[in-house]
C-alpha cells in the first residue's frame, strides 16, 4: 500500500510545498506527517482485500446501475469527487458499525467533493431497502451481484470499502473490521489532492 503513494506524482506535491517554506520546523512536521501517513498506509495494506488481483492504482471498474430509489447510478458521473465505495450487506455486523459513520462523513465532507456509494450484496433487495431506510442513508445505494463482485476482484468477504480519487483511480481498499480513523485520514488526504 505504501507503494501507492510513492508512485503517485500527486502525492509528492505537499512535499514540494514544505520544501518551499524551507524551515527546519516545517521539515520536521513533514517528516512526522510522512511517518504517520506511512504507518497509516501500512495499516491499510494489512487490511487489503483479497481474492484476486488488486485494483490499487487502477481505474475503478465502471458501475452503471439503478439505485434503490429508482434513480440511475453511474460511477463515472462522480469523477471530480472522492468516492467511498462500500460493499455491504444487512447480515454483515461490521458493515452496520461502519454505515452510520459513512452517513456522518457524507454530511461532513460532502461539500468538499466527497461521495459515498453503497453496493448491497444482499440476495434480497427488500432487506437492503429496509435497512437503508432505518439507517437513513444519505447516499445512493444500488444492489450488487456476482458479476459486479468479480469486476471488483471478488467480493469474497464483507465489509469491503474502496477509496477512489477525483480521477476515478482506486487509492485504497479495506476489508473486514477496518479502522475507521484510518479510512477517514486517507479520505481527507485525497480530498486535498486535485
Amino acid at each position: 500500500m505504501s507503494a501507492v503513494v510513492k508512485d503517485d506524482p500527486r502525492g509528492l506535491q505537499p512535499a514540494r510545498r514544505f520544501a518551499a517554506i524551507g524551515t527546519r520546523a516545517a521539515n520536521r512536521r513533514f517528516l512526522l506527517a510522512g511517518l504517520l501517513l506511512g504507518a497509516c498506509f501500512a495499516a491499510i495494506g494489512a487490511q487489503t482485500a483479497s481474492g484476486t488481483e488488486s485494483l490499487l492504482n487502477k481505474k475503478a471498474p465502471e458501475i452503471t446501475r439503478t439505485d434503490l430509489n429508482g434513480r440511475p447510478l453511474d460511477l463515472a458521473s462522480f469523477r471530480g469527487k472522492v468516492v467511498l465505495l462500500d460493499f455491504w450487506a444487512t447480515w454483515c455486523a461490521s458493515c452496520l458499525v461502519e454505515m452510520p459513520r459513512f452517513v456522518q462523513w457524507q454530511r461532513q465532507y460532502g461539500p468538499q467533493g466527497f461521495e459515498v456509494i453503497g453496493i448491497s450484496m444482499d440476495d434480497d433487495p427488500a432487506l437492503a431497502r429496509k435497512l437503508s431506510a432505518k439507517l437513513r442513508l444519505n447516499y445512493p445505494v444500488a444492489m450488487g451481484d456476482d458479476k459486479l463482485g468479480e469486476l471488483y476482484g471478488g467480493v469474497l468477504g464483507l465489509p469491503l470499502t474502496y477509496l477512489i480519487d477525483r480521477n476515478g483511480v482506486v487509492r485504497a481498499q479495506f476489508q473486514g473490521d477496518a479502522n475507521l480513523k484510518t479510512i477517514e485520514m486517507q479520505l481527507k488526504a485525497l480530498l486535498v489532492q486535485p
Partner: protein
Amino acid sequence: MRFSLVRGMGMIALLAMLVVAHKTIHAQFSGGAPSPDSAFSIPAASLLQPEELNRLLHTQGANKPLVLQVGSHMLFAQAHIAGSEYVGPGSQTEGLRQLHNRVAPLPRKTFIVLYCGCCPWSRCPNVGPAFKLLRDLGFTHVMTLDLADNLGTDWVDKGYPVERGR
C-alpha cells in the same frame, strides 16, 4: 522533583489504562458462555482448518465430507469451495429450513463440513445457528471450516480449489 511528579502521574495513568484494558478483555472473552448464534459457540474440537479440508477434498471414499455453504448466495455465485453445495444463510429461517431439508435423508454419521466466510469469524452470523441445527438433529460428525477473515483470504488466496457460478 517536577520530573518525578510527572513520571509518577504517568505511571498512574498507565496502570489505570491497563486495568481498563484488562476489564474490557475479560468482559469480551470470559464473560459467560457465548451466544448460541455466535461462531464462538462452536467448540474448538469441531473446527476444521482450511489446509485440512483441502487435503480431505483430495481423498476418496468415506473420509470425503459433504461440504455445505451456509452464507450468502451472492458470495457463493462468485466463488465457492469446489464441490460444495449452497443451502442458505444459517442466520435466516429459510436458510435453516433448506439446510434441514438437505440433510434430513442422510445418515446421522455423515461427515458434514459447514462454511460461510462472509465476514471475520467473530462477526459471522451464519455458522453458529447452522452448526447447532445439525447437532440438534443428531449429526455426530459435523465440522465447521475455520475461516478467520473470509473465504477470499483464507481459501481462495491460498490457491485451494474454487468453483464459480450458481
